[in-house]
């Protein structure tokens, strides 16, 4: 799964780490019990699966997520002893873990790992502003003023975009667009806004052609996912 990286002698690796890397010691009882490569590889897969599953929840269980991520980091570190990683929780781990994996051959895995760690920042959802107690108010943020950095992908959920194999199209498959088809949600072009006074705008309204409607629908779905009408509740 992971190709061979640069090999260094084990003693050098441990010295470079400067910390107790018990999982590298074949004499350690826990390590000696099972063939390490087999055990950690399947555990790694299992952990990645759990992480994916957790991130796909609309509101991930933070404790579960953090525990799985930490376990994954441990397993990762034991599988790539040449990466010379300090163990968590020092902050630089995230980018260096991603970097070391990027050096290995499995591009899809490394891309997803890097994005997984990045996705942790999206878990809170929309509230990104580091105000001290302002976000103690209604979780999320006021409708007015979309942060420019957030795109439709972020608004739809933490795990989307980076982890789906079928790309962007898959994101919209389950969105029920029948609501957008009804007149209630159709956007009002400039002419319609002038309608109350009568005049040319009024006649133009029912004759909005299909191409324009399609274009407006795309705009709606792209930028107003937030203002999607409430679901049925259960």
């Amino acid at each position, binding site marked *: 799964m992971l190709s061979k990286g640069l090999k260094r002698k084990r003693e050098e690796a441990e010295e470079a780490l400067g910390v107790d890397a018990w999982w590298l010691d074949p004499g350690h*009882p826990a390590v000696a019990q099972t063939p390490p490569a087999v055990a950690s590889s399947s555990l790694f897969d299992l952990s990645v699966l759990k992480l994916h599953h957790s991130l796909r929840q609309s509101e991930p269980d933070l404790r579960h997520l953090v525990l799985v991520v930490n376990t994954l980091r441990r397993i990762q570190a034991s599988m790539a002893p040449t990466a010379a990683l300090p163990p968590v929780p020092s902050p630089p781990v995230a980018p260096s873990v991603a970097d070391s994996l990027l050096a290995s051959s499995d591009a899809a895995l490394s891309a997803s790992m890097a994005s997984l760690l990045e996705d*942790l920042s999206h878990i809170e959802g929309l509230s990104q502003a580091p105000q001290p107690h302002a976000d103690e108010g*209604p979780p999320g943020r006021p409708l007015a003023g979309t942060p420019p950095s957030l795109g439709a992908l972020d608004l739809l959920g933490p795990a989307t975009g980076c982890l789906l194999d079928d790309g962007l199209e898959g994101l919209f498959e389950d969105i029920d667009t029948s609501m957008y088809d009804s007149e209630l949600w159709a956007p009002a072009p400039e002419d319609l806004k002038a309608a109350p006074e009568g005049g040319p705008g009024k006649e133009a309204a029912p004759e909005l052609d299909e191409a324009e409607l399609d274009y407006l629908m795309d705009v709606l779905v792209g930028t107003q996912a937030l203002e999607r009408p409430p679901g049925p509740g259960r």
Partner: protein
Amino acid sequence: RNKTTCLLKADIISTVEFNHTGELLATGDKGGRVVIFQREQESKNQVHRRGEYNVYSTFQSHEPEFDYLKSLEIEEKINKIRWLPQQNAAYFLLSTNDKTVKLWKVSERDKRPEGYNLKDEEGRLRDPATITTLRVPVLRPMDLMVEATPRRVFANAHTYHINSISVNSDYETYMSADDLRINLWNFEITNQSFNIVDIKPANMEELTEVITAAEFHPHHCNTFVYSSSKGTIRLCDMRASALCDRHTKFFEEPEDPSNRSFFSEIISSISDVKFSHSGRYIMTRDYLTVKVWDLNMENRPIETYQVHDYLRSKLCSLYENDCIFDKFECVWNGSDSVIMTGSYNNFFRMFDRNTKRDVTLEASRENSKPRAILKPRKVCVGGKRRKDEISVDSLDFSKKILHTAWHPSENIIAVAATNNLYIFQDKVN
């Protein structure tokens, strides 16, 4: 509580709590309902029914909600119930789901006024012109009615999931804790809370630890503890500063090198923390053990009890089926001499701190005929299985006892086994 044969998810009990006198026992479930049981008064006529708990009140505490901004459903499951000490004829309790805490008043009505002047017997307004005499309404007895009314709703203060609530010994404030923050509330004020702990990192990528439980000291209203997913407990003093990010004491046991595994951190994650009634000790529950800590000794617990150490060799399978993430609670008895916690296969364990004896009991219909004596159970860990023992591989991991409660002064315990509530009493001859 009716024992149905099919398991409805909404009926799964999610919290159990006695009130301060033990007269009432409240349960909350996944469907957002609260059921309160009341202990029957002792009666000379029915001695054998003395001390039985019967349903007193049932009400819907929380409903499923939809967060429109995040397009998320908020579960109605009751995570915790905590009683307030009784100060008048009514009972008050706090109940919480993932996001909202509610204060409920439970009161009795056994009289109703009759003889209104402006209303007739059906409650319809009378035409004042038809009233020729006045009378004074009188109170007449009626069948006892127990009503539950929501008196306060404490909402919009938690971005993450609430795991704990704790009433302060000043009876004026309480705290609510979620994965990353703890807020302090005044019972009278619902639109404002004070944030007293915040462990959210500036960059969420750096998140490695969450808050798992929190509780106020039983006597010192300025002191509280909170536990973490890394197996640590922090004791904080609110007098030290407004934001208690710096702890007064830090409790952590060094890792045992011979027991290290990839799962070390997960099994060290503390699922419950409880002060002893005396306030001198705290008890913590992690996946495999219960530990008792002396507040004056931070570097290790004074007692460690193995709940189900036979699971240590099964951690990989338990990780696979997510059982390793189960959150078990733990409780003290009234005198702090015995501690109790749940396990799998509907087993629960009790540890006597003085005699160092422990017992495994089972909460199941087959083994619990009314007034029958519970038989101790034993798990066979290897080798020859004796009769009446159960082997580790036969344990049913879907039958977990996560929630238990102990009467504040008597040997009466309540054990929640999925959707069934068991109440066991110690009958002293």
